[in-house]
């Protein structure tokens, strides 16, 4: 018996990245903009989606993939709005991965404009898993506190947009929106910042316009 060292240099997320790359390529070719929504539990991802689909529904076709540890509750809320939704119950896993999205792929209508993927509520683990999305958005709600971007940097570093949600609570809680924005920009100078409230409707139109612009860009680059 002899000992032998071998060099490998293989990425532990390599297989996930490969599947995600395939998903992105196929969705982009169909002209579908996929959006991965990340946040801690209760930051308002489903409430934001409920408001967004009301704005987008007259002109665009969309569907939603809901990731949760247990229950169909979020998918039921989206279906109640007349939008197709799938629930992935991870049964304990703290994040969605590309393989889970890949399994649903054949059911995704090819004529969609937007595919929203609501990740499991968790500001840590989902940040490491590419799902094949074109855009990643992270929500930070007012009750969570304005110091989160530097405490959980990966979620903010890897996102294209930061949505500061529940702004209707700004006058009730000591949250400094400038600090949250600055922290977001420190860890990711290219991040686009939106301020929204699903209760009074603030900023939802602006965020919808951003998604429509991104959809146009994706289709222009296809043409």
């Amino acid at each position, binding site marked *: 018996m002899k000992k*032998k060292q071998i060099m490998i240099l293989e990425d532990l997320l390599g297989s996930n990245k490969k599947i995600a790359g395939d998903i992105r390529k196929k969705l982009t070719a169909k002209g579908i903009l996929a959006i991965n929504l990340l946040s801690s539990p209760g930051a308002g991802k489903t409430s934001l989606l409920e408001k967004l689909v009301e704005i987008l529904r007259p002109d665009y076709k969309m569907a939603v993939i809901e990731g949760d540890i247990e229950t169909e509750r979020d998918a039921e809320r989206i279906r109640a709005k007349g939008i197709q939704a799938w629930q992935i119950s991870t049964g304990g896993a703290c994040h969605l991965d590309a393989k889970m999205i890949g399994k649903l792929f054949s059911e995704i209508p090819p004529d969609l404009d937007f595919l929203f993927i609501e990740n499991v509520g968790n500001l840590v683990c989902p940040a490491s898993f590419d799902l094949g999305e074109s855009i990643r958005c992270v929500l930070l709600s007012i009750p969570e506190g304005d110091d989160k971007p530097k405490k959980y940097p990966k979620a903010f570093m890897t996102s294209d947009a930061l949505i500061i949600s529940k702004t209707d609570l700004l006058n009730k809680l000591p949250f400094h929106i400038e600090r949250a924005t600055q922290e977001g920009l420190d860890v990711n100078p290219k991040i686009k910042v939106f301020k929204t409230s699903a209760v009074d409707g603030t900023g939802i139109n602006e965020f919808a316009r951003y998604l429509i612009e991104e959809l146009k860009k994706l289709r222009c680059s296809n043409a």
Partner: protein
Amino acid sequence: MHELSLIANLFEIMEQKAKEKNAKKITYVKLKVGALSGAVPDLLETAFDIYKKDTIASDAKLEIETVPLKLKCKECDAVMEKDDLVLNCEKCGSTNLETLAGTDLYLEKMELEVD
């Protein structure tokens, strides 16, 4: 705690490489963990110890090297290591930076017992 899924991926790679080399045992494994890889070294070690039982790597020693976040400025070409999470260039202030290292998680090498 997604470290267990990462370690499951690691074992898939390890077992495949060991098979290719006709190895009887894996005795040593070295990981390179980026400071912003999103994985915690202590949790990777715990997950590795749980996972290795009854595998070809049941006696393997795990070594983890942490890799700092390393960036290159696309404007002035300065290369810097960052731990303050303010991602602009130390020299010229530009935010147009390229990541060179520190965000990935790699199996660098391993030691095998072969006939």
